């Protein structure tokens, strides 16, 4: 049994929520510049240049990349040989989120009730997903999900007869309806299989994948490539103002499902796919 103080999680999470709101991976700005050069449409080129410049300003001056600094989503993979000390785990996670959002001058976007809509003032509570895994480590992945794109996410309970074609149509429909509101170029997390909530969770989890990585099995990797190609032919373009680059990546996750169903969830993320993993 390895002892881990929950205070460590608080500190790591506070640092991570600040970092991800000011920085994307170091090569993202130059990747945006390369996309700008490849765009045929002058407006699209200009938008990509603005997005690249925005990243530079954000990082240099510690101004959030986007004013919607997101709702914090924290994935915990807890080794079964870990014993947490110094307090309650979820309280410590929320304390990290609170500290990061307050000290980092990040926007507080969480309301305590869907109807009363009173702001909680510190961006808590976070959405927390926990998995128990073998080992004695704790893997914490912190993401800050903006709602311009979250609002455009969709879940479809397809029939088995709809097959791959039905899945493609569902993803394309989601992207077309998302348009400019999702701040393209987007990243799409696609969950296929499971049940109602499992496929939604896979879609969210798929967004956490490292940039440039494709699905482990060849069928899913092919589906990702083909979907990306189709999405980029829609012409929605950067900021939805037209162009060749509508999506940066399509990340597919699949899992076993029921004989009667083919659930598909599409979690839309804007060009600012903010997440960071810490292993304790």
């Amino acid at each position, binding site marked *: 049994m390895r002892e881990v103080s929950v205070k460590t999680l608080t500190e790591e999470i506070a640092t991570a929520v600040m970092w991800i709101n000011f920085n994307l991976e170091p090569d993202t700005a130059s990747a945006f510049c390369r996309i700008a050069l490849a765009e045929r449409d002058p407006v699209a080129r200009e938008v990509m240049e*603005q997005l690249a410049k925005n990243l530079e300003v954000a990082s240099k001056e510690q101004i959030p990349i*986007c004013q919607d600094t997101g709702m914090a989503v924290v994935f915990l993979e807890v080794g079964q040989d870990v014993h947490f000390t110094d307090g309650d785990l979820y309280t410590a996670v929320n304390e990290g989120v609170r500290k990061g959002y307050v000290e980092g001058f990040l*926007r507080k976007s969480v309301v305590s009730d869907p109807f009363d809509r009173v702001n909680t003032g510190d961006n808590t509570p976070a959405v927390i997903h926990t998995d128990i895994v073998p080992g004695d480590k704790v893997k914490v992945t912190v993401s800050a999900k903006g709602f311009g794109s979250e609002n455009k996410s969709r879940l479809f309970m397809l029939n088995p007869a709809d097959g791959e074609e039905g899945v493609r149509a569902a993803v394309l429909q989601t992207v077309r309806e998302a348009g400019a509101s999702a701040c393209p170029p987007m990243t799409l997390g696609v969950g296929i299989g499971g049940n109602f909530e499992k496929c939604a969770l896979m879609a969210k989890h798929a967004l956490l994948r490292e940039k440039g990585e494709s699905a482990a099995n060849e069928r899913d990797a092919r589906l990702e490539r083909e979907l990306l190609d189709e999405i980029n032919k829609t012409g929605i373009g950067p900021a939805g103002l037209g162009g060749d680059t509508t999506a940066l990546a399509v990340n597919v996750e699949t899992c076993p499902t029921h004989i009667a169903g083919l659930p598909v969830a599409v979690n839309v993320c804007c060009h600012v796919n903010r997440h960071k993993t810490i292993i304790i």
Partner: protein
Amino acid sequence: MDGKRISLPLTDEVIDTLRVGDKVLLSGEMTVARDAAHKRIYEAILSGEEPPVDLKGAVIYYMGPSPAREDRPIGSAGPTTSGRMDKYTPTFLSLGVRATVGKGARSAEVTEAIVKNHAVYFAAVGGCGALLSKCITSSRVICYPDLGAEAVLRITVEDFPVIVAVDCTGSSIY
């Protein structure tokens, strides 16, 4: 971004010259309001009260900034999705709002109201909040401070880059 320099408030003559796809740099004062503030202002209007914010001639920017650091007038300050304000926009336009600034497509009702009231809808680049904040020189809360990030602000902008997304003839970029 380059573009045609325009001073706010907008005049009829200037609105006449703007066509969908035109790149524009706005300078002057804008009113910042988003979901919760729109709801409150709308409800005040419906109950026959004077709107608590002067809508006549206003340019409304759909935005909720992140908190300002000590040495800055405002935090990150990019556009939010305009479509969520569609329910309120025709009424606001009929009360004198000349332009709205946000991101994404508008409803048929809003487009119709833009034509009817001789107004314009500008799109700013979504997700550019750090860069756009550099075009904002001052900011103060003018209404509903209890709404936090959703309070109504009066901001001063200088060469704030936008694109004409719906012009006064009803043509849309989306």
